[in-house]
């Protein structure tokens, strides 16, 4: 069974409904590690060695975060800047992440229909995620389609439960 690392970035977790639930449901799954960045590094001082160690120990990396300004909350960007070092993650000798699976798990306020040509947000979610896609590629990882939950502001409790199950199913299938 593969090991899954959820790199979770949410600056206002106490206000979150969906993400808290999604991640909370995974807390006692044995092959899943949840790495809550904002909880671990409240002062943005990322422990690079520790994070690299986590990456090495896992096979599936999920960047789990709300979609802020078509990208990730700032601490996750800091994580990319600092943890994916040259010589570790990329470059001639940077092969540490080779062959691992990577994807984003994202929640958006806007509905799916707005993320289309002619829609309010004009582009598809996967277009906005190109930097992640290419970063994974540079690190010789296999980048998969994102797991996206749209229109989170209006979700009912039942729908949240359904998404939680779906997320869990996805993770289980990735870990096989």
């Amino acid at each position: 069974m593969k090991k899954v690392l959820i790199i979770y970035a949410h600056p206002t977790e106490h206000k979150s409904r969906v993400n808290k639930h999604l991640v909370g449901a995974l807390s006692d799954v044995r092959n899943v590690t949840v790495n809550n960045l904002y909880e671990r590094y409240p002062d943005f001082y990322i422990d690079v060695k520790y994070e690299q160690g986590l990456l090495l120990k896992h096979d599936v990396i999920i960047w789990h975060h709300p979609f802020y300004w078509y990208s990730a909350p700032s601490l996750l960007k800091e994580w990319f800047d600092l943890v994916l070092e040259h010589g570790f993650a990329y470059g001639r000798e940077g092969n540490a992440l080779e062959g691992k699976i990577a994807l984003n798990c994202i929640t958006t306020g806007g509905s799916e229909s707005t993320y289309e040509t002619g829609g309010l947000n004009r582009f598809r979610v996967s277009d906005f995620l190109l930097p992640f896609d290419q970063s994974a590629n540079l690190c010789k990882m296999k980048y998969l389609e994102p797991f996206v939950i749209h229109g989170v502001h209006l979700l009912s409790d039942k729908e949240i439960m359904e998404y939680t199950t779906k997320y869990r199913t996805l993770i289980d299938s990735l870990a096989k």
Partner: protein
Amino acid sequence: MHLDEIFFKIMIYLLAAVISVPLAKKIGLGSVLGYLIAGIVIGPFALELVGSDGEGVMHIAEFGVVIMLFIVGLELHPSMLWRMKRLIFGLGGMQIGFTALIFALITAFFWLNTAQAITTGLVLALSSTAIVLQTLSEKGMLQTRGGRHSFSVLLMQDISVVPIFAIIALLASQIVTDTPIGDDEVVNGWQQLLIIVGAVGIIIVGGRYLAHYIFKLIAETGLRELFTATALLLVIGIAVFMDVVGLSPALGTFLAGVVLANSEYRYELEDNLEPFKGLLLGVFFISVGASINFDLLFENWQLIVVVLLIVVGVKLLVLFALGKLFKLEKSHNMLFTFSLAQAGEFGFVLITFASQNDIYDDYTAGILLIVVALSMLITPVLFIINEHIIQPRIHETKYTKVEVWEDNGHPVIIAGFGRFGQVLGRFLVANGIKVTIIDNNPHNVDYLKKFGYKVYYGDITRKDMLESAGAAKAKTLIVAMSERHQVDKLVELAQKHFSHLKLIVRAEDIAHELALQNKGVEAHRQSIFDSAIQLGVNALSSLGYSKYQSFRSALTFKHLDKRFMKNLQQRYSKDDPHFLMETRKFSEHLENILLMQQKHPYQEMDCAWDTDSLIEEARENEEVKPKK
């Protein structure tokens, strides 16, 4: 006295102290009363373990007062002293003047002898520096307004001992015209003044310009005991020198202390002398207790009680009136009034001196000595009255009853609301957290109430107080007091009785932090740590570092320090019985800390932002490409 006899005496004194002081503290009486009672118990009128040598011992032990004043001086900068001049000379002078005048009038009415009247007035005007300073600092009240006023008056009194000696000598010479001392005083008045000015000058110049080199020389030998010897030599030397020129040793050493307050060896001096001070003061108090002549006391107990009541009563009245005049708030005025209502240790010396000069007959001197001793003996009791009866009364209107407190059910209790606790409290309140604040400084309590804070007055290191503050329901206890032993006491209390409380503790220094960690307190911080680093950030910025670079450096430093602390913790294992001493020793030497710090390289952080390896690889790739 034979050697074994001396050892026996020492053993008795120490044994009495070791048994009685912890007992007295346990009952909440303070160490001074403990020592006094120990003295009575071992004295000639109870167990008869020490005899008439009490006075000789007392003379040696008075040296404790001298060391104490030196240490007090070390903590006072000349500028601060200058700022306190109104209190020292104004308040102190008036206290001595008025009290002496009233006592002189009363005495004149009873004894009808001018010399006796003036002497008695002056003797009884003084208070006990030893008892009051010791008690105030033990209770952490020296820095309060009331405490500072008391200190100023005590200082003025110590300064006045010299002229009082001169006055008594002068009075004596009038009684017995051919007393040589008196003649000397009168004839050599001007010379005396010159000598005094010269002596003071020598201390100031020596302390300013010479002491530094001597201490440096001694410190470089690396022998700790030599430094201790030098420190003792300095104090004893000054005391002897002052004695020779006819000045008060206490005053001289105090002055030397003030001069050395800016010296870089200040803490070293303080550390070395502290144990001597404590021990000698203890012996001094014991000998006061032992010197009480109970035969005389029992024979004349009615007279003595009346005199004692008059003495303490008059002093209380004068002090209270002066406190009012100097606009002390009521609670501070009460502390001021009650702390200084006794006669002082210089009384013993002065009374003995006066009776040697035939101002007093043996009987009068004996009675006065008992009154002085008893008034000192009841001082701790006066403190207790003030704390437990007077102060709660003053705050009665605002003193919320226990039931109301428990209804509050605030999740956070802040113990200690000085400058430190205030910032912390403001931060929490700004975040909408409900806090119960407890402080032992009545002034803070009043003031903060005006701004709508829920502040209560009391000694939080007592279990019932903690209970009434709602410790059972609270989640977090923030220990923000400045006095280390109070902090430790409260931590212990909370861990014992309210183990569910999360403790957030203000630590004094690294050793304290380690000790707290050892006790299982997870959240603790040296109170100065973060502000020191913040100033460091400003310093980096002033050198042209970018704002973020400075900020980032501070973060790195803090995180390294956390690791460094962990390392220290492992190095001094919990099971080591000497843990506290070891860590203390370690952290006292800056050198150790710097060495440890070197093992955690500061420069290896933030590698990913370095582009060196990228550039290198790019260059190498460039070279591999076939050149056209």
